[in-house]
């Protein structure tokens, strides 16, 4: 892929070496258009409840409602610097698609977003938002119609159009330089959080928690803490409904590739994957569309293998409970993805130390329909009755 060589060259020049002031412009736009820095909020009720100082990194307050804008803005701007004329992207939860559509409108670039049909149906508000920002949303019907299939389709588009098109990949996955570049654009999360927690708590945290789908908010939240040996880093995956694999149907009812996957090669990266004994990639499952991916970023997999990052997982029910807990106790409605990190806080707070930072990677507006339906179907701790709403949905 010559596209990859061209992109590597642009990454080294503009991102690493700040050629033509690229990184300065990126920072300015993150501030003025994006609303950075985001707060690091001390969560009073949760702190009391867990007898631990809990700090929330509020990426839900970033423009667009998720950390995804950091990367999307960086890449769309880079595409401009590279002289590209068109943007393509894939999206799972729709947050990356939304962020890309916003950045593309902001920087005046046409944008096409591929999205699995399953995800289109469960993340409609984001489909509307992408359309409102002028992007075309192209449904992908292959497989289970989630993120993996959307990535395949976007790669096909890019292979056809690379001469004038940049592919804004949404996480720290895919071929080099994407994983490193996306991490660098997301590292602003931990840059701020590290400074903020020192200012507010007077010390570094004992633990940092982030959910892991592909792992972009994870790597962003961890990057500046990796060399702080006293800070434990926890990547929380979607345990879905079960960690067992249905080999017959080729489905893993989870997306816990760090916890249960094996090494393999997908989308141009060697990493941990959900796969069968032959090496065929399994369909993953999570109540949160943004975590629903059979792979994970190669650098994150490496940090887990080397013991620097601990991979854990929580199931769908625990994530839903955490969603309701944060909503009702702190007045923050988190994305279902982020709720996984909060669920791990709930389950493991005794072992996380005195000061904990949890990355709230996004807000939950996009998930309301899913949450209402799923909460109504199950018995979820700390959840209000949902039947009044489900009537309205049908």
């Amino acid at each position, binding site marked *: 892929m*010559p596209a990859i*060589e061209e992109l590597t060259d642009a990454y080294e020049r503009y991102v690493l070496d700040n050629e033509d002031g690229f990184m300065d412009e990126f920072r300015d736009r993150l501030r003025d258009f994006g609303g950075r820095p985001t707060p690091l909020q001390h969560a009073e009720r949760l702190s009391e409840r867990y007898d631990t100082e809990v700090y929330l990194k509020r990426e839900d307050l970033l423009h667009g409602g998720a950390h995804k804008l950091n990367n999307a803005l960086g890449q769309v701007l880079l595409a401009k610097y590279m002289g590209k004329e068109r943007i393509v992207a894939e999206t799972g939860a729709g947050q990356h698609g939304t962020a890309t559509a916003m950045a593309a409108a902001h920087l005046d670039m046409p944008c096409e977003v591929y999205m699995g049909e399953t995800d289109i149906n469960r993340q409609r508000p984001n489909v509307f938002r992408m359309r409102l920002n002028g992007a075309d949303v192209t449904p992908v019907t292959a497989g289970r119609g989630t993120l993996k299939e959307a990535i395949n389709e976007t790669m*096909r588009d890019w*292979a056809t159009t690379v001469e004038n098109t940049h592919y804004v990949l949404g996480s720290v996955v895919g071929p080099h330089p994407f994983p490193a570049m996306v991490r660098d654009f997301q590292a602003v999360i931990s840059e701020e959080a590290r400074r903020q927690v020192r200012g507010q708590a007077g010390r570094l945290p004992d633990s940092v928690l982030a959910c892991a789908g592909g792992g972009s908010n994870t790597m962003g939240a961890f990057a500046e803490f990796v060399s702080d040996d006293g800070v434990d880093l926890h990547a929380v995956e979607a345990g879905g409904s079960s960690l067992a694999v249905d080999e017959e149907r080729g489905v893993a009812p989870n997306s816990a590739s760090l916890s249960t996957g094996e090494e393999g090669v997908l*989308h141009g990266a060697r990493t941990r994957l959900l796969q069968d004994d*032959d090496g065929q990639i399994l369909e993953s499952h999570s109540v949160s569309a943004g975590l629903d991916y059979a792979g994970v970023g190669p650098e994150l997999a490496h940090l887990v293998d080397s013991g620097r990052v601990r991979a854990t997982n929580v199931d769908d029910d625990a994530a839903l409970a955490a969603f309701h807990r944060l909503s009702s106790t702190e007045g923050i409605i988190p994305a279902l993805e982020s709720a996984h990190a909060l669920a791990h806080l709930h389950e493991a707070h005794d072992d996380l130390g005195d000061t904990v930072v949890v990355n709230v990677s996004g807000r939950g507006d996009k998930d309301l329909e899913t949450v209402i339906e799923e909460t109504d179907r199950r018995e979820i701790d700390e959840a209000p009755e949902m039947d009044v709403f489900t009537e309205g949905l049908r």
Partner: protein
Amino acid sequence: MNAIEAAFAEGPAFVPYLAAGDPDYDASLEYVEALARGGADVIELGLPFSEPVAEGPTIQAAVNRSLDAGMTPERFFAFVEELDVDVPLVCMTYYNLIYRYGDDDAERPRAFVERAAAAGIEGFVVPDLPAEEADPLREACDEFDCDLVFIVAPTTQGERLDRIMSRVSGYVYVQARLGVTGAKADVSAQTGQSLDRLAEWEVPKAVGFGIASGEQAGEVVAAGADGVIVGSALVDIVAEGYEAGEDAATVAERLEAKARELKDGAVAGAQRTPRPERT
């Protein structure tokens, strides 16, 4: 000279592709044998992978039919062993299946090549394996006397081209146009330019992506190609037969006729325009 080079040495080579096991194991055996009767010089056999990112809709659907019918790497090797054809066979697949094969991590990817070679495979095309990452597979291919074919896109340039040149054998797969596989009505103007860039390469040049008729095959050969690779146009015949519920023998006849058209077209192309002198 190995079997693949020999196949190219005899004149313009016709290299058809089918997904092994599409739409099912038994029919697919007949189809591949029909291609050989129709004049195939080398056959690319697809070992289906769940994420066929280099493929357009036609071959994606073929891959899915084959997987749904139970194709696995082991069944693929059995398929190759059972095939009754007298032309070299190239395995076209994605790297994860090669990488994951075998029980012993330390033996990867050698175990796959060893097994494939034992079954009768003489070369590999792995569209998602960049030349930068190909040395372990290249070494295994050398050990078992197999070729490793690389795809060169119209935009491949510079160091990358050199890296491919130093690792490719058998033939170089010249991608006629940007994008993914799929039959097209015209021959891309990029083909001639792509061939010119590789003029110095010693390995035969086979052009693929979009060729669907004998006439197009002739144009490509007339432009200087040593061979033509045809996939989607043949897979289309398999798909139509499958959808119409036709019996395998009828579909096989049609494949054989199409193969003959493509092979004859390639030969006519070579006659129409003298091969450009290679210095």
